[in-house]
């Protein structure tokens, strides 16, 4: 499998053209909203210059401190998204959800968020945008 694209002739099919256009517009709208939010907003004081917001394969990347996880979760809960919804969106089974999220935010807990969960959490908060490499 290599990167190939559909023939341009596919666009002659009105049904394909319609679904292609709608889907692309929806994706572009979410991407534009995400990027604007990421680059223009003040994110309630979260510093996007921290190493935890670097690309995951960047040598300087490091996991966030508990305070950053807490602020990131707050950013989402302030938008009306509950902690259970947040963990559900990361794919954590319901029975483990809230306690686990609380552990990631609790200074006294040894449990740290792992890298992929952090990337998805920070993405949902609109702080980073992992894309095609």
């Amino acid at each position, binding site marked *: *499998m*290599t*990167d*190939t*694209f*559909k023939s341009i002739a596919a666009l002659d099919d009105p049904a394909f053209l319609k679904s*292609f256009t709608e*889907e*692309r517009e929806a*994706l*572009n*709208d*979410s*991407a*534009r*909203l*995400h*990027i*604007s*939010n*990421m*680059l*223009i*907003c*003040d*994110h*309630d004081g979260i510093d996007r210059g921290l190493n935890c917001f670097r690309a*995951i*394969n960047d040598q300087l990347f490091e996991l966030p401190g508990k305070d950053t996880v807490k602020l990131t979760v707050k950013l*989402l809960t302030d*938008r*009306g*998204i509950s902690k259970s*919804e*947040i963990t*559900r*969106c*990361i*794919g954590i089974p319901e029975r483990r959800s809230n306690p686990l999220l609380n552990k990631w935010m609790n200074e006294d807990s040894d449990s740290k968020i*792992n*890298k*992929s*969960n*952090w*990337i*998805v959490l920070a*993405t*949902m*908060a*609109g702080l980073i*945008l*992992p*894309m*095609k*490499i």
Partner: protein
Amino acid sequence: MSNLKVDKFLQIKTIDSLSQDEIDSGMTEIAIRDAFARNHNFQSVFGENPIEQNDPCLLLITDENYIPPTTVQLQSVVDLLMSRGLKKTHISKNLGINPDGSRSLNYWLNPDKDRPIPYASWRLLLAISGLSATTILLNEDVKQRITDKVIRERKNKSEALKGVK
């Protein structure tokens, strides 16, 4: 310069305090990232991708129709990335897992093992392969307000264009 008028949820403050250089570089970064996102989205929609765009494994986990990927689907995405010259160790690095021997990745790819790829790693793999993207999470009210606003703006723009013709 006038204040940026935006929805409160975006928490955007004024840009009055920024210098012209800061505004220009910010705008350039937005344009670059926007171009990247468009390229990414084009791949998702127009690419001959190993996974069909409407496959349930591309849905968000919150969608009741979501089905985790099979090892065959996972392998096809890894193959796509490898066809771009990436090695399994690079892929592992980009997933934030130990690249030594690509053990976790190989484990997830092995149909005989019962440990599937965790959802967050799967989403990340989809993002780096350009097959799907995770974006900002908003509640339905806010999303609806934004959608309405975008539709309104598109309509105004198209009416304005008709007026010009």
